């Protein structure tokens, strides 16, 4: 994850002799660890606990004691037998398979262009690419919603005047319309992360290549790109996580088109179960399944990319 060099932590035997050094890291980490335990670990433990219980009811459900009883893996079984919930994983994976490469390719291309001497007005263009990230997801989706809808969208109008009939909200296309909103929103950040990594590549490496007669494109692909692979890996990982947790965009688009169903993504199923269905236990089980899938997939991506990197060395 570091940018190339391997600096060893300064933990020498000599250092351990002094008391200050022994305690310093703990003191430095205290605020983070405390907040981490209270606001991250504790909630996860609570969610895990909740997922193994269910509220006991009978008859009309009026005046029941509503006590929670331990039900083992019942909630998990119920979640996994909910075909809408299970198939939503397939949907977000399909989404990710397309959205993540497209978005990353765009981010990398932009970062490389900004790092080269090819264009001017870099600050303006960087700002243009970055602004969408500042637009909250809900507003961004509303905004694109206007551009997707027939009768109000200038884009649809333009396409129609060219003889193309476009329906951005049909059952088959709405997934890609959501992908477009997310690409528009997050390309800026990923571009910045990769661009920042590019800026740390020593300039003299370029000079050497240039003297060898390498063009901008060859330099970008053969020298710059390999140098920022760690940053690209980082952004890939985040993008995959983001994909699995897709929520705000489809949820907002659902108010514009019912072709986004109530269980369109795993997170929407969790929302439906918890907020509309009032079943926190089932919702927790679904959320934990989602967490486990995210975890598994991230491990997979790490292993694959490590193996790749190992092979090229």
């Amino acid at each position, binding site marked *: 994850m570091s940018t190339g060099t391997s600096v060893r932590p300064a933990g020498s035997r000599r250092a351990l002799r002094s008391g200050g050094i022994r305690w310093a890291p703990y003191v430095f980490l205290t605020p983070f660890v405390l907040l981490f335990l209270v606001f991250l670990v504790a909630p996860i433990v609570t969610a895990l606990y909740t997922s193994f219980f269910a509220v006991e009811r009978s008859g009309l459900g*009026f005046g029941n004691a*509503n006590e929670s009883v331990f039900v083992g893996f019942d909630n998990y079984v119920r979640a996994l037998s909910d075909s809408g919930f299970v198939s939503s994983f397939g949907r977000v994976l399909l989404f990710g398979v397309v959205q993540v490469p497209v978005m990353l390719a765009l981010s990398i291309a932009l970062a490389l262009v900004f790092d080269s001497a090819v264009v001017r007005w870099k600050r303006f263009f960087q700002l243009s690419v970055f602004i969408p990230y500042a637009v909250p997801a809900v507003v961004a989706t509303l905004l694109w919603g206007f551009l997707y809808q027939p009768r109000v969208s200038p884009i649809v109008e333009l396409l129609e005047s060219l003889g193309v009939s476009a329906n951005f909200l049909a059952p088959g296309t709405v997934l890609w319309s959501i992908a477009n909103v997310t690409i528009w929103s997050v390309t800026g950040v990923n571009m910045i992360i990769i661009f920042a990594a590019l800026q740390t590549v020593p300039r003299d490496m370029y000079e050497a290549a240039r003297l060898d007669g390498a063009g901008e494109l060859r330099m970008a692909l053969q020298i710059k790109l390999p140098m920022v692979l760690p940053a690209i890996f980082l952004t890939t990982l985040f993008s995959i996580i983001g994909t699995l947790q897709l929520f705000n965009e489809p949820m907002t688009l659902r108010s514009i088109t019912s072709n986004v169903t109530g269980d369109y993504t795993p997170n929407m199923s969790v929302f439906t179960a918890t907020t509309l269905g009032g*079943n926190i236990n089932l919702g927790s089980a679904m959320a934990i399944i989602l967490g486990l899938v995210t975890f598994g997939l991230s491990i997979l991506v790490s292993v694959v990319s490590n193996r790749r990197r190992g092979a090229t060395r």
Partner: protein
Amino acid sequence: MARKLKSRLTTALALATGPVLFLAACGGGDDDSGAAANEGPVTIEFWGWVPGLEEAVAQWNEENPDVQVEFFRMTGDDGDKIPAAIDAGTAPDVVQMSVHSIPGHIVNNRLTELTDIAGDWEDRFTPSSWGSVVFDGALYAIPQDSGPTGLMYRTDIFAQHGVEVPTTWTEFVEAGRALKAADPALTIAQFSPNETGFWIQSVWQNGGSWNGIDGDAWTVNVADEHSLEVAEVWQTLLDEELVTTVEMWTPEYWAAINAGTIATVNYAAWFPVLLEESAGATAGNWAVAPSPTFDGEESAGDTGGSVNVIPAGTEHVEQAAAFVEWLNTSDEGLEHLINGGIFPSAVAGLEHEALMVEEPFFGGQVINEVFADAALQVPATWVDGPTFELTQNALKDEFAQVANGRKTFAQALADLESRTVADLTGMGLSVSE
């Protein structure tokens, strides 16, 4: 404020010192619960969304120094926090909520039963609004506003093509055909999969109810004859392309209304204000007639409105109830509600002078006369079930499939029925066939 923050910061810091203190802090409870109830003025908290509630609360506070109401305006998702707030014991004393979400809260023991306090207020409200707050003989909420239906229609379009304004659903379909024949771009109405209110109101008008109580079990009647009659009308409208499919509330919908390609909106009494705001260019071309009926007998539908509830665990139930009574049944309270743009559920509100005003947007018609008549004609049949929000959510998905031609309305209703039964039994509740 600063002191409060400081003391809370200390609590948070105490957390850091270890799990023992953590548990102690948890058991401590809220600080203001210790104050004796009969000492000095009582403060109750009220969450609601009707515009102008601030003024209503201000007037109440001036007249009732002993019961001071603190008002919080809810927007958007705020309703979603109510369950968590009630369960955590931080809920307000009075909450405005959708009538459809009451039973879901009752089965979770989140509402105070009001039968003893307000059980005899029945005569003050319209029969249909009262009917949907009483479950198995027990009262859990006080009706606030309703959505009795009326047919808003474009006078110019009907006049231009020489089509009569329909009074029955059969005539409605006929009128749809006539309008379409006169102008292929014109549709008599729209089909919106995302707005379940259109369906609820029609089934309600037809004397149906998707849920009910039969002894110790819930009933589910999503696909009974009341609903199927509605489905038949809509299937015809859709098959013959007499309606256009466009989602309600979207810019696309308003653009279609502005463009004058949708001739009628058969919808709730609170809709005209929104129509006026979003389709200003069409001012003067609208009028309101009674909703078309199924069998020629006068009846109207209702989309369901909102109610006031008193969450479980509230300390000052009596004071809260007194405020709710004043807000929803007194002349002053009703005036504030009406001025805020809602249509009251109280009978006294139906005759209120603030309601009976001429609307220039509707060519000077006193449109609320139509809606007030409708309010009293709505059958007192509709009852919601504990999973109604899930049913509504699933209805959108089912109707999206109807719009895409994958299902008929009848099939969609049948599937919705089995989904609803599964949701209820999944909660551990009994469902009778």
